[in-house]
């Protein structure tokens, strides 16, 4: 990346008076010389996640005297924008937490530091799909910190009333028809206004993709060269999504709608909710009814979403060596496990799976977490690959827009399949 061409242009435009006010040299740090302060951009979407991060910081600072972590949570929506701006302004933070889906944009511009050297003998201990997501060619550009997935939360009080017992084996997971039937009963018996809620929004419209994979549809071909969504199965999947929304979900629960899916569920307005493992501790606190988790409904096969985040170092970070130390720290078995236990995540390392002991207030939540752990194995490998292409952000936008056309504007599944195919092609065939 060429250095700061933007700043150079603006330099010309700036009146000399103001330049006079600027401190000499770049990044005039007020910190004392012998202490390194690492600026870490991250977000927390729950209290437990925040606690998990704080514990990691504390532990790291104890082990590494002389390095401090200066970290402040920000909303996930803003972090991506601000990280990009800061990298462009050459005021990059030392470390950034990045969603796997956002990684491609950074990798495409070589904006992240190659950190392959922090992996030595431990490389096989990491989840290969996640490792793949943070790699480009032979080089690795980050730490696959953790992953999450989606499964089905349900209101147990309602289910008991209907005498329904949701499946507890993954191969017995409901089909979508079965789910729709349960939803129908919930609505007919006036238990819930809506059978189902789906946790997604514009930025995470890709969470609908597992439904395609369940019907063996992938949105691109294997070599990622063209869209492959406009097939008979693709159209069927879209029809199924349309039915799900029209008959079982609240109008405001489209990807860009105004409803908050969590609120729909916790208030009892929706009887079931597709959401991620990180929500378990929140529901422990905020629901007044009993709830449990079962597997994502299945189609021809089961599939669920690959969520989670990596931590990476910008290519122009001011203190890359210390940053790497922190990455290494996050990847150590004990720390990676402790983070997952506190934050209720699926760790990036696979060698800690057996020992992991989640920190729940309610011991019953462990069963819920076990569902997620099992569900995580159904994440399609192909999906993991496609998510980190540089254009994924644009593709996600297309998915969001087309889902709105399908659900809100009630376009036919055939038309939507057509537009999806066309728009995705126009992005990747560039």
């Amino acid at each position, binding site marked *: 990346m060429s250095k700061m061409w*933007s*700043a150079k242009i*603006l*330099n010309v435009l*700036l009146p000399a008076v*103001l*330049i006079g*006010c*600027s*401190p000499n040299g770049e*990044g*005039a740090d007020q910190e004392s010389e012998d202490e390194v302060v690492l*600026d870490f*951009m991250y*977000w927390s*979407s*729950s209290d437990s996640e925040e606690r998990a991060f704080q514990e990691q910081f504390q532990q790291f600072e104890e082990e590494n005297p002389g390095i401090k972590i*200066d970290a*402040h*949570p*920000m*909303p*996930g*929506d*803003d972090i991506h924008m*601000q990280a990009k*701006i*800061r990298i*462009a*302004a*050459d*005021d990059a*933070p030392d470390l950034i937490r990045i969603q796997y889906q956002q990684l491609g944009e950074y990798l495409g511009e070589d904006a992240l530091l190659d950190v392959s050297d922090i992996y030595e003998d431990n490389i096989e201990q990491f989840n290969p799909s996640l490792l793949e997501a943070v790699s480009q060619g032979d080089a690795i550009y980050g730490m696959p910190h953790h992953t999450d997935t989606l499964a089905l939360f349900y209101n147990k009080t309602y289910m008991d009333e209907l005498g329904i017992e949701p499946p507890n084996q993954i191969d017995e997971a409901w089909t979508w028809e079965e789910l729709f039937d349960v939803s129908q009963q919930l609505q007919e018996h006036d238990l819930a206004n809506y059978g189902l809620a789906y*946790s997604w929004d514009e930025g995470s419209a890709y969470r609908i993709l597992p439904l395609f994979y369940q019907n063996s549809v992938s949105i691109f071909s294997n070599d990622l060269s063209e869209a492959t969504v406009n097939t008979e199965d693709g159209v069927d999947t879209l029809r199924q999504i349309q039915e799900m929304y029209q008959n079982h979900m609240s109008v405001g629960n489209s990807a860009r709608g105004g409803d*908050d899916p*969590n*609120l729909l569920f916790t*208030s009892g307005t929706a009887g079931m909710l597709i959401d991620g493992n*990180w*929500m378990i501790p*929140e529901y422990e606190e*905020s629901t*007044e009814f009993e709830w449990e988790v079962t597997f994502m409904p299945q189609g021809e096969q089961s599939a669920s979403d690959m969520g989670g985040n990596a931590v990476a170092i910008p290519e122009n970070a001011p203190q890359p060596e210390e940053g790497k130390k922190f990455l290494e720290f996050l990847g150590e078995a004990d720390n990676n496990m402790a983070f997952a236990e506190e934050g209720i995540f699926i760790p990036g390392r696979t060698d800690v799976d057996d020992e992991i002991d989640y920190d729940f207030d309610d011991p019953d939540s462990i069963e819920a977490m076990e569902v997620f752990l099992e569900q995580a194995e159904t994440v399609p490998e192909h999906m993991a690959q496609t998510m980190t292409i540089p254009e994924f952000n644009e593709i996600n936008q297309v998915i969001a827009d087309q889902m709105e056309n399908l659900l809100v504007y009630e376009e036919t599944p055939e038309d939507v399949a057509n537009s999806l195919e066309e728009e995705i092609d126009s992005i990747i065939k560039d």
Partner: protein
Amino acid sequence: MNSKAPTNENKSISSTFNRKFQSMKKEWKETNKISFFFLCIIAFIFLIPFLWMLSTAFKTSGEAMSGDTNFIPRTFTWENFQELFQVVPYMDYLVNSIIVAFFAVILTVFINLLAGYAFAKYKFRGRNILFVLVLATLMVPAHIIVLPNFFILNELGWINTYAGLIIPTAAEAFGLFLARQYMLSIPDEMIRAARVDGAGEFKIFLKIILPNVQPLIAILIIFTFMFRWNDLIYPLVVSTDSSMYTLPVGMVMAEGEYFVDWTLMMSMTLISIIPILIVFFIFQRHFVQGFANTGMKE
């Protein structure tokens, strides 16, 4: 609202009260009943959202989600606020907001008065072009220029500083426009007379002009304060460090990404608007007078 308190302390309280009552009675007789009736209705409609927020802020989560429409909470609770103060370092943000708003008001009001005076009362080359340029900046979408602004501030080393939060948006067109319009109504003779007496230009501004534009100053204070107190996008970009967050930024940051609890949200909204409402009620008397003299005479 009747602020004329009796000055003579010897009067007994009851007679004061009586007088007041008499004057109210007289006032009511002269009242245009229909317009009063309409005003009451409109005022009520305008107040409803505030009242609903206020009542939700003191309800328990369960009651708020019960679908009842009572404005007075059945179980009155402070818990939402306690929980909020645990999550959000409200006082820190409040202090930042006050520092930023205070200095921004002083700076902005002063330079707007100066510039408004220059535009209104001097003839100089480029006056009209400059004025039109200034007005045109009102139409620039702020959300797009934050990006180059970040680069500039970064060059200046002003990211995460009070200077960066206060100075860049101190020049703003709306206040300057109001100041210029208001100053037009100042009689030229007054300035000429002062010049004849040998007063310097800056002294005229300080000693003659400023004392005559107090309603304008009140308006500028309200608007600047309002604009700074509520501004979100700019401080959001300038402060990358939470120790520099202002109240709105802190609030947005604290709003859980995935989780919404409406009682918490409404208590958060409530405490974020209390300071600005206080400032507003202090200065609002001057409002109409200030606007009246901006006189819309181009």
